[in-house]
């Protein structure tokens, strides 16, 4: 039960969102694509040199910039 941000979560792992840090604009932006506390996701990949992270929520895949991904915290139940 580690608390990690999205950039620290290893690719291929599933996790649940526990915390999102950011202002109203950031929250409204991520919320619009279904990223909010309590949602389960799977991390698909991350690009080299602090590149974007891709995650899957339900049937949709979302690419998130590194800085934004650092503000989204998750808890993984998998070892």
């Amino acid at each position, binding site marked *: 039960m580690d608390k990690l941000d999205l950039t620290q979560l290893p690719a291929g792992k599933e996790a649940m969102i526990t915390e999102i840090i950011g202002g109203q604009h950031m929250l409204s932006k*991520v919320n*619009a694509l279904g990223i909010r506390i309590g949602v389960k996701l799977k991390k698909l*990949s*991350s690009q080299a040199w602090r*590149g974007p992270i891709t995650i899957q929520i339900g049937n949709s*895949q979302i*690419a998130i*910039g590194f*800085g934004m991904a650092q503000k989204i915290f998750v808890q993984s139940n998998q070892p």
Partner: protein
Amino acid sequence: MKKIFLIGNPNVGKSTLFSRLTGVHVIASNYPGTTVEYSKGYIRIKGEKAEVIDVPGSYSLEPNTQAEKVALNIFSNAVKNNEAIFINVIDATNLERNLNLTLQLIKHKVPLILALNFWDETKHLGVHIDITELENIIDAPVVTTSALTGEGIKNLVSRITQARISQYKFKNSDIWIDIGQIVTNTQTLSHRHHTFFERIEDISIHPLTGIPVAVLILFLSFALIRIIGESIITYIIEPIFENLWAPIILKLSQQLGESGLLHDILLGRIVDGQINFVESLGLLTTGLFVPVGMVLPYIIAFYLLLSFLEDSGYLPRLGVLVDNLMHKIGVHGLAIIPTLLGIGCNVPGAMATRILETKRERFIVSTLMAIAVPCMAQIAMIFGLVGHHGIIALFLVFGTLFLVWITLGLILNHTLRGESPEIFIEIPPYRLPYFKALIKKVWMRTRWFLREAVPFVLFGVLIINLLYFLHIIDFIGNLTAPIITGMMGLPKDAVGAILIGFLRKDVAVGMLIPLGLTMKQIVIASIILTMYFPCIATFTVLIKELGMTDMIKAFAIMLISTLMVGGTLNFLL
């Protein structure tokens, strides 16, 4: 008249549905944000004519991008209209996220009907939705559609008039709880295996395999564009011009007395019964041959490849892969999409910058495009002009332009105030492009080129003739000699090409052909023709997109960088 608004999340198929409903074809692609403006068409419902409006995609009624602002604007005006009906188009494979906008629409008390699109895909994905139950809960009609194949469209049309104001009640703060309950009550998921496309998805987004794949795809695309373009020219266009059109022109030339002002404007200079379609500069010779014979084949080839990439869903993935590089010039990876569109024509490219969030990003991408991204019409002519000097000349031209693009981007990123946001985008699933839709799209873009470009080309050729006839080119040539000749090392005659370059770049490059330039001069001329000014059509769109002040700034950057690059090249080469 009733007004029907197609509203929904990005990339749920609104534009395809719009084309199905109205017969008016608009460009639809497989990435979020293809539609950035308002388009309308008409439909007959029970004998009554109604207007249909395709609204840019929006995840919510709180706008985050320029395109979403356009959407909210349309929506706010529509709400005031008593005769407005809203078709909320939903991606059935992503019910939960899409319902967010649906509930927001319900809050506004507008007549609503839901179209669950991509219905065919739900079956492959193991998604089952109970339509009757959804209708009951949401308190509005729900129909299922597959806009691409046309399934369910008739049913949608017949039920449009049943759209009603939903009485569904919820608290704004509990919106996701309500959505969760709706989904639990209506949707069941069954287990399924990884599909073939999902495996490719993994390969193309993984950094180790993704970058080689991207390089391969781009290389193959450009190779194919050249092969297809050249084949059309060699096997179709040239035989037609040489064997069918030339005899007609020669006959006409005889009837016009083989010389005179009218003869020269219409047919150009014909030497010893030989027509040089590129150099003669007549309306019916060069004026037709440049757009139809030299540019059109490459336009068709380019849009075939681009449309395939668009419909497959590859472009947003490319955006993710190049995100790091693009951040160096102050924008995120998605800016690659308007830039690629700009290679076809800068006009739609400039409009597509609306998928970016901030003014700063749009300024950077548009300015760089106007300066360093030549359009396909110009590229095709550069191929023709530079071609026989071999690959080195081509490399010099496009390599320099790429260098200018990067360097200017770095400078703009460091000097412009503000920061650029990070990439944040939904990546669509891969879809096999639907052949009929693909061909339709290529045809629409080709027709658009013919309609927009050919008149300008003809006008350009006419102007050239008049300028020569009135000796204005000589006059301006002498006037600008210190810059054109002294600084850039080009002959005085090149000023004619630069003047025409304000109108059309393809004709401008064509005008360089008879000048007998050296390779060095050809390279410099091709580069400065790209850089000093976008064509008038692009310029007009940019004023609209950026505003006058920013456009003046962009124009100053254009002039300064053209002088610097032209002078430097003349010194170095």
